[in-house]
């Protein structure tokens, strides 16, 4: 009996030893192999969602923010009945069951069903407790100011990728490179690790735009659009010394929160993408270059009594017949005849050279997408009458921004600045990581710019073309422009389509901002002084008080402007 039990125990011992050897094989020899397998299934490398940075105005006010919304997805491996799931989902989501069915009917482990829905709906979906249907949080871009500065801010697609404006241009700042994190999960795919990094935040972009000024500009453009039944209107306000864009608006605009319901034409940033013939506003190019070249002085007289001048076989007339005008008066009264005579004195090489120098015919380099360079033909390709036409702002195509920048040269004492909308980039914890550098290049002398400032001041004085642009208590330097629109069909100047503009800067002697207002195809009045001038005045007036700028005549009138602190201490007393 006992020897048989020995046999059994030997069999058992062989079994135990075999198990031990097998364990050596699995646990020691193949340890690395199984460890990899274990890591492969237990540990999941998960992409950390990137939360897009905010877009702020120069004072830190939020122009683009993120809202948490929820998105519904399916895991086809878990979905039991496609038909049942689809009908149940359709009862909550506003979609046809057939469409949901096609979305469910894939082999993917992850497929979107409906994205960025509100919490009320996602809660209902959670309550359905459908197998294979999940809900995850996704940040959605929200623009609290609606259509304000729409062309500058731009918008994003469903995956939060910038499509227009700053959202597109500053994509690399706003997003961060997606990182991956390692999380533990169970066999059902539930994430078990706690405290791992849940999101990466992109940097915040601070624009040079001032929300208050932007609002003032847009409001007044809207008024003039309504009043003049204009096709569109544009205004740009710029800090003259740095080139910072304080406000830039084009009408019509669109609601950033529903870009899909807008048309491409409303999404166009006319301030940098539309070219027009500048008309009289271009006359300063000839004027400034003549002064800079020393060909004329301010008191030099030009005979404009003929009321017209012939250039290259074509007769160009003045709007009103003038007598003999000084150089100053030519600009003030915007005489075509006088300007052409100056231009002819300069010669086409110089006119071309200064046009180029003032930045026409090339991009301003603004940090927005879609800017065009305009049209300025080389002087070798000019016809006989070109010198006359270009002197008074015809035969050239410019953008409103180019014109504004040219006037800013006079405002800031002779520097060509690079306009920009990006002020700085800040990390989520407010560290500045990038700052736009100010680029400026002297193109005319301080003296010439000072002289010209004085000339431009007279435009809004009695005898000038833009008394309507006069601003209470402040001297305005500026220039009107009225240009005909070339009908694309007939290739001739249209009889009833005009572009009225006014460009200038205030206060004239110590400019705080330069401003251009362009109204396209106004009905009724057409002249820049009448249509764009009042808009300029209103915007400038409101902006000056918004910016708390002391009136030029404050001393004369004995006005006292109190700083905020003084006001506070006064009321405290």
């Amino acid at each position, binding site marked *: 009996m006992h020897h048989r039990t020995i046999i*059994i125990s030997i069999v058992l011992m062989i079994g*135990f030893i075999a198990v031990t050897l097998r364990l050596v094989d699995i646990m*020691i020899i193949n340890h690395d192999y199984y460890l990899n397998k274990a890591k492969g*299934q237990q540990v999941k490398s998960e992409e950390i969602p990137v939360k897009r940075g905010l877009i702020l105005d120069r004072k830190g006010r939020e122009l683009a923010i993120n809202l948490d919304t929820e998105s519904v997805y399916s895991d086809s491996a878990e979905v039991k009945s496609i038909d049942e799931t689809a009908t149940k989902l359709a009862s909550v989501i506003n979609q046809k069951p057939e469409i949901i069915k096609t979305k469910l009917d894939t082999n993917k482990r992850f497929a979107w069903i409906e994205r960025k829905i509100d919490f009320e709906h996602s809660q209902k979906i959670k309550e359905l407790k459908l197998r294979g249907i999940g809900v995850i949080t996704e940040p959605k871009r929200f623009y609290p100011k609606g259509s304000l500065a729409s062309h500058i801010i731009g918008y994003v697609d469903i995956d939060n990728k910038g499509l227009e404006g700053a959202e597109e241009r500053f994509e690399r700042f706003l997003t961060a490179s997606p990182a991956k994190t390692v999380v533990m999960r169970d066999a059902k795919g539930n994430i078990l690790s706690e405290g791992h990094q849940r999101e990466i935040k992109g940097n915040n972009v601070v624009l040079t735009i001032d929300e208050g000024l932007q609002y003032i500009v847009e409001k007044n453009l809207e008024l003039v659009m309504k009043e003049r039944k204009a096709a569109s209107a544009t205004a740009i306000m710029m800090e003259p010394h740095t080139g910072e864009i304080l406000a830039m608006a084009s009408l019509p605009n669109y609601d950033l929160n529903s870009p899909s319901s807008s048309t491409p034409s409303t999404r166009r940033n006319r301030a940098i993408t539309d070219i027009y013939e500048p008309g009289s506003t271009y006359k300063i190019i000839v004027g400034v270059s003549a002064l800079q070249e020393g060909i004329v002085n301010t008191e030099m007289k030009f005979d404009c009594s003929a009321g017209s001048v012939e250039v290259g076989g074509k007769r160009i007339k003045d709007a009103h017949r003038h007598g003999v005008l000084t150089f100053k008066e030519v600009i003030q009264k915007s005489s075509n005849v006088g300007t052409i005579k100056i231009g002819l004195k300069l010669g086409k090489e110089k006119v071309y050279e200064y046009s180029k120098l003032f930045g026409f015919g090339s991009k301003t380099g603004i940090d927005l997408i879609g800017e065009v360079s305009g049209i300025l033909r080389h002087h070798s390709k000019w016809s006989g009458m070109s010198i006359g036409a270009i002197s008074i702002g015809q035969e050239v195509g410019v953008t409103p921004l180019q014109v504004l920048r040219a006037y800013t040269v006079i405002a800031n004492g002779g520097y060509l600045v690079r306009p920009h909308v990006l002020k700085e980039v800040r990390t989520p914890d407010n560290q500045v990581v990038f700052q736009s550098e100010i680029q400026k290049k002297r193109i005319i002398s301080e003296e010439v710019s000072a002289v010209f400032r004085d000339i431009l001041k007279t435009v809004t004085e009695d005898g000038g073309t833009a008394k309507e642009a006069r601003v209470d208590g402040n001297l305005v330097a500026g220039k009107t422009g009225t240009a005909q629109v070339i009908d694309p069909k007939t290739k001739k100047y249209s009889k009833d389509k005009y572009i009225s503009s006014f460009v200038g800067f205030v206060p004239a002697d110590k400019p705080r901002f330069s401003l251009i207002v362009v109204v396209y195809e106004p009905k009724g009045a057409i002249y820049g002084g009448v249509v764009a001038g009042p808009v300029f005045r209103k915007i400038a007036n409101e902006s000056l008080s918004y910016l708390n700028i002391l009136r030029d005549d404050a001393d004369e009138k004995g006005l006292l402007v109190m700083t905020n602190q003084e006001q506070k201490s006064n009321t405290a007393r």
Partner: protein
Amino acid sequence: MRLLIDKWLLLIVFVLILIGLVSVYSSTSVVTPDVLEKGQESGKQVSPFGFLKKQLFTLCVGIFALFLAYKIRLNHLKILTIPLLIISLICLLLVFTSLGVSAGGARRWIRAWPTVFQPSELVKLSIVIFMAWFLSSKYFNRDSIRSFFIPIGILVVFQLLLIKQRDFGAVMSLGVLTVTLLFIGGVRLKYICLLGLVSLPFIVKLALEPYRLKRITSFIDPWKDPLGSGFQLVQSFIALGSGGITGVGLGEGKQKLSYLPEIHTDFIFALIGEELGFVGTVVVILLFILFLMRGMWIAKNSHDSFSTYLAYGITFMISYQALINFLVVTGMIPTKGLPLPFISYGGSSLFVNMTAVGILLNVAKVNKQQRLLQTQSQPLTNKEHFQLYIPLTNNDVKDGVFIKPFYCFNRKTNTIV
């Protein structure tokens, strides 16, 4: 008074149970979102101690059963043999009544407040006691084919019921156990060979049933379908393999996160491997080898054939279960639902195994009593005779000490003088 309990056996079992409690707690204490959801659905409160508490409750009941089995007189146990067998049979039949409980596609349990009971575990012990009784009784003749097929017949009845419950693991272990005891009992080898030949077609037929065939094929190549039928085995390998020599640390295992099904019951050995490494698994194997050796030592030192067969039966019953479990977890034989004695979570197994250990301790106690008396008695003069210290009647013993000197046993005639 000297302690008569076998300290070594008690220590081995105690350590195994302790390892079991720690492992059960480790494998069931993680409340995953999945577990939480299930708990909420069934309205039960989810607690990390839920399984541990149940196991501790069973342990208390088991200790009580162990104590009873330790105290009972072995000849009383002999009388209980047939009733126990009948009770097992009834329990097994109850599974098919409204008292039966099914889980995981198999109907193997009956309701026994406050938990469920798996009769197949009881059947194993009953068969062992029955076989010990039968082999030591006058009905058994090692050379008679009839006395060979009587236990086989009883075995087949139980096996048929177990097949009905799809408890193939129990069918197999019960068969192996019975044949082993018959083998020890000294039956002719040709009977066993004959039995093998007769049962071969049945085994093949059972093995070819689709769900079982799938288990067998997935055993041969688990990686063929690692997400389907081979899933459990693959996950078991990953658990063991990732443990390495020293393991990932107690409680640090990840395979219990719904990866390895039945990790707290049949596959708890994989968890030990993952968390305590090769070292941990070898310790468990060594403990079972020690158990085997101690059990055999006790059996060998028994002085009557009933106790001997009983001790061998219990020792082999538990050792077989442990070995089969190891073989399953390491993928050396196809998957079967057999728990690892003392360690796996599961009330029935723990309760029955502790009762069995109680009986084994009982046998050891009697051995010790006799050895104590033997040292007091006269040395043997006749090699053909040896002294018996078994209380044959109630009057022989008082307070654990023999009052009647001894009986003499003739080896050749197998009679008491």
